[in-house]
């Protein structure tokens, strides 16, 4: 098994959750999200974000509004929908359970 591959798989799995978590605090446009994810080493290349955003939007978890920008093209500001918030709540729960499960597994003797 390739360690880089395994890491990537792990990252990918939680990426969706992280995007929703970031947007729960603040409305952001793609580049902001990218920067946040990059700072935390969650993504390596930027391109991977866009399909996820589109998918989440199509799934009704996100919606966006256009905002003009002083430099560059108009920006899509994403925000969580009601569904998105409910979904995130569920994800939070299962994440906490997961963390605990992993912890207890690690401490298993």
């Amino acid at each position: 098994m390739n360690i880089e591959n395994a890491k990537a798989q792990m990252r990918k799995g939680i990426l969706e959750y992280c995007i929703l978590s970031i947007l729960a605090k603040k409305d952001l446009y793609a580049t902001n999200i990218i920067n946040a994810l990059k700072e935390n080493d969650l993504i390596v290349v930027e391109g991977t974000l866009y399909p996820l955003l589109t998918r989440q939007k199509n799934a009704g978890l996100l919606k966006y509004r256009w905002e003009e920008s002083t430099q560059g093209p108009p920006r899509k500001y994403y925000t969580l929908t009601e569904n998105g918030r409910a979904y995130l709540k569920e994800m939070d729960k299962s994440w906490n359970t997961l963390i605990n499960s992993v912890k207890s597994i690690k401490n298993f003797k």
Partner: protein
Amino acid sequence: MKKAIKINLSGIIFHIDDDAYEKLKTYLDTISRHFSNKQESKEIIDDIEARIAELFQERITEETQVITLTIVNEVIDIMGNPEDIADTGEEADEKTTFHETYAGSKRLYRDPENSVIGGVCGGLAAYFAVDPVIFRLLFVIFFFAGGASILVYIILWIVLPKAESAAQKLEMRGEKVNVSNLEKKIREEYDNVKENVKENVSKAKENVSKAKDSVTYQKTERAASDFFEVLGKILLVFIKVILIIIGTSLVIAGIGILIGIITLPFVGIHMFPFESYNFSLGDLLIPFTDPVSVTLLVIAITLLLLIPVSAMIYGLVKLIFNLKTRNRGLLVGAITLWIVSLFFIIGIVAFESSHYSDLGRDTLSRELIIGSDTLVIKVNQDQEEYLDDESLIDLDNKWYLLEDADAFYGRIDLDIEKAKGDEFEIEVEKESKGRSWDNAEENAANINYKFRTTDNTLILDPYFSVDLENKWRFPRVETIIRVPEGKVVVLDRETRDILEGVRNVNHFSDWNMAGKSWMMTEEGLEKIAE
């Protein structure tokens, strides 16, 4: 100097180098093709384009106004390769076998790199992973079979898109669109472009020197050259189509000749002067040579004709379909075989012609005691009828060969001369060729010829024969009848075919001499008035 293009990325105008543009376009195309859902794909691409526009803007400074290939590469590095992008997108679905399904997905394109006319066959061949020649042949065959294929071709030409980007070309072949494949393809394309650019640059230099500073002149020149370019292209396609039709006709004719050559030794031919009978090359040679020589000769002659015709067809096909195959071994082999065949033929002909080097004679001469002053000469009708029934080869009305007959037959010559003595005489002079004088004489003696007398009638066989086991060494039989002075010879009507150059006082032709009575006088034969 580099050509730059103006592009609109998310509503912002950028100047981008030609090569950088190609790379970016390929990149975006590849990403977009990774998504099965078109709507979704467009949205993602729009987002990515917006981000790329942002990244470009960050990189434009006062000094660098143009997006270069370096910048594009940098941006692509930031954005990640198409597979990674697609991977995250598709992950939400159960499509874990994404690559496999993609690798199998192909699209029909026209292949501009592998085109004779419009690249339709090239594209079809790429799609089905076979040699383009197969499709070209099919189109040509169906064109000749009914002509519908030309319509199909034109429709496909219009309907199918041209595979222009590297990703499209990969897709056309069904190759997996991953980075290494793309890179390979792009590198190939880059080399192509480099060459084109070189050409264009040198052309442009010429143009510049011609055009001086006149911008309008340049513009009109460009418009004109565009127009002529299109016209030239149309003309070129037209000429190509015509050449292909001509070439294909030649190939078909050539294949016909090939089949002819191959079957010639085995199947009969209808050919002058054997109009009514089928004789194969082998049949024609059998009377002259032994079967082994015939077989060898037939094979050698077949090869001698076959090789150049095949080579011509091969060359023609290569020319029509733009094939670039080089097979030295085949070429050397073919030439060697041809030369060997040639020497074989020379050898066999030399060997066989040695059988004809000497001439031998066998002469029989005797008096005809008939107890009458009048000799009637008739032709053996039985033999005439027998041979007429059989299929004959009539060569120069001089000798005859029989197909499936009991012997080889030849017509005799009959001459009438003045006898020295008081009796009628007959002389049968048989002649034949042979490899030596002795052999020739033996061959002459082996010629069968018969005649008989009843009362005062001499009945001559119109044909002599050579047994099948003896070969035809150009035998000849001349029968001379000597008539004493003052005696009469009556020539039956049927003798007209065998009389040969008989001199007579009346200067009658052989044909007219037959059926009449002749008296031998001091001057020669003279017609007796009826």
